């Protein structure tokens, strides 16, 4: 009993000297349409109809916040900083992150719809100010489904990346990331500082409790601008139109398995 405690203490001391225990974690998050909302294109095809639509923290970003908070609860992280890029309204999602356990928040406020490359550049500027050891992002936002920001940020910083993570483990002064890949799982080992992007199975985010929601209101939330960070976020892409997907012709309800097999063989001709 005593031995194991001594060993653990010694181990922690080693980890401390390797700079792991007091790791600072940055979690970029995005305000998006709630995942339950069925989004439609505007009738003039100028964009997506977002009037009076419920907004929320992107589900993958929520998983990122949860993972960072767990690292802190396990004594592996000293500070969790949430950052978002967007309009003033994104403060709402930053408060959610604070209620889930982040210590402080930064809003890079802009009215421009910043593309992933621009977001990565802004985040790089934030990283250079805050010097986190680990940056955890969602693998993709469920609005533009781009799946780029984490990888782009990693490239701009020349950091390693563990994308689509289903498990992370701090190990030997670095981090081991198990990744969800097409054929199964892949494990990579990354030096720190590093970037991790979350997949669904990394964890199950908690619900913010009422006391924590109240506490979050008093936590610091700094607002800065893209000009403060001196980053050009001019869009490179021009969205010409947003249209509804082609509709499928309505199908039929068959009454029996026999009828189904008959239709598949003789009408659709997809089985023989």
């Amino acid at each position, binding site marked *: 009993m005593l031995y194991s405690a001594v060993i653990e203490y010694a181990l922690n001391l080693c980890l401390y000297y390797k700079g792991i225990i007091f790791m600072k974690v940055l979690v970029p998050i995005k305000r998006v349409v709630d995942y339950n909302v069925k989004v439609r294109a505007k009738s003039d095809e100028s964009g997506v109809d977002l009037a009076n639509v419920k907004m929320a923290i992107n589900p993958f970003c929520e998983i990122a916040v949860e993972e960072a908070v767990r690292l802190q609860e396990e004594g592996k992280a000293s500070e969790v900083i949430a950052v978002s890029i967007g309009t003033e309204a994104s403060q709402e999602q930053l408060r959610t992150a604070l209620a889930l356990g982040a210590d402080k928040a930064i809003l890079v406020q802009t009215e421009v719809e910043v593309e992933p490359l621009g977001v990565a550049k802004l985040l790089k500027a934030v990283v250079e100010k805050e010097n986190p050891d680990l940056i955890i992002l969602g693998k993709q936002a469920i609005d533009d*489904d781009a799946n780029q920001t984490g990888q782009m940020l990693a490239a701009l910083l020349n950091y390693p990346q563990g994308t689509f993570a289903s498990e992370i483990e701090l190990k030997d002064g670095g981090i081991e990331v198990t990744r969800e*890949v097409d054929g*199964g799982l892949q494990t990579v080992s990354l030096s720190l500082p590093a970037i991790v992007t979350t997949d669904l199975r990394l964890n199950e985010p908690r619900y913010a409790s009422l006391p924590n929601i109240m506490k979050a209101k008093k936590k610091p939330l700094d607002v800065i601008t893209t000009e403060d960070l001196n980053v050009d976020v001019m869009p490179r892409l021009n969205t010409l139109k947003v249209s509804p997907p082609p509709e*499928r012709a309505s199908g*039929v*309800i068959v009454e029996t398995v026999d009828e189904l097999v008959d239709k598949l063989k003789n009408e659709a001709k997809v089985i023989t």
Partner: protein
Amino acid sequence: MSILIIAEHDNTELKSATLNVVSAAQKIGEEIDLLIAGLDCRSVAEEATSLEGISKVLLADKPAYENFLAENVGSLVAQMGKDYSHILAPATTNGKNYLPRAAALLDVSQISDVSSVVSEDTFERPIYAGNCIATVQSKDPIKVLTIRTTGFDACGETGGQASIEEVSINEDLEISKFIKEELAESDRPELTAADVVISGGRGMQNGENFSLLEGIADKLGAAIGASRAAVDSGFVPNDMQVGQTGKIVAPNLYIAVGISGAIQHLAGMKDSKVIVAINKDEEAPIFQVADYGLVADLFEALPELENKI
């Protein structure tokens, strides 16, 4: 117009996703080179020389690229790609991993999941889980695209006479290391390349019941998929997930069993040619996209279906 395609392969053979990307490239321009980065992958390069429409196969057969680490491959693609007008890769987990890195290093944006080519600088891509299609024009000097393979037919595999050119770059950034890979072993076709896919949802009730799909899959030569609900409930591993955050499939026949049809699942399969839904809840949204719907208890319908096909 000169196009660089990054091939998907496993150092032994070319993956079919590459063929769809070649087709997409042919809609953009005619001068197409194919980069094969890996280790001991010369046989892949040789196989690729006969692909239709490829001018040159660039072979980076080096230790730094053995496991396709995004850091090393991203850097290679940025160096190789800087003189091209377009850089294309399939929107596989691999392509999604390294290509945004290359784009950022080149200081250009990436257009993800291109489902259709409108012109050399304008592309269609699904957004909001496929509930909308955005037509996007790029102002960047280099267009970096990941290609949604289901949006394009496979190119021909014969008739090409590309030459092989060696690439000398072998740069290990030494910030990441491959540890291991645990790939699911299966005799079935790959989900994203199968002609027939049969998927189970929460209605399957547990992982064991997925065996009810196997007999049918065997008879039809089908791949087996799952909804996110089934994956989240722990019935089956995530690599079987079809949907917005899983795999995108568009087989000739898609059979959805015990799947309600959440938006995020539809995003992964609604471009299938023929969709069959089997669900006991006649109100399930999956019936709205199904060509043939069968309102039935799957535990009765599946054994019967297996017998009758």
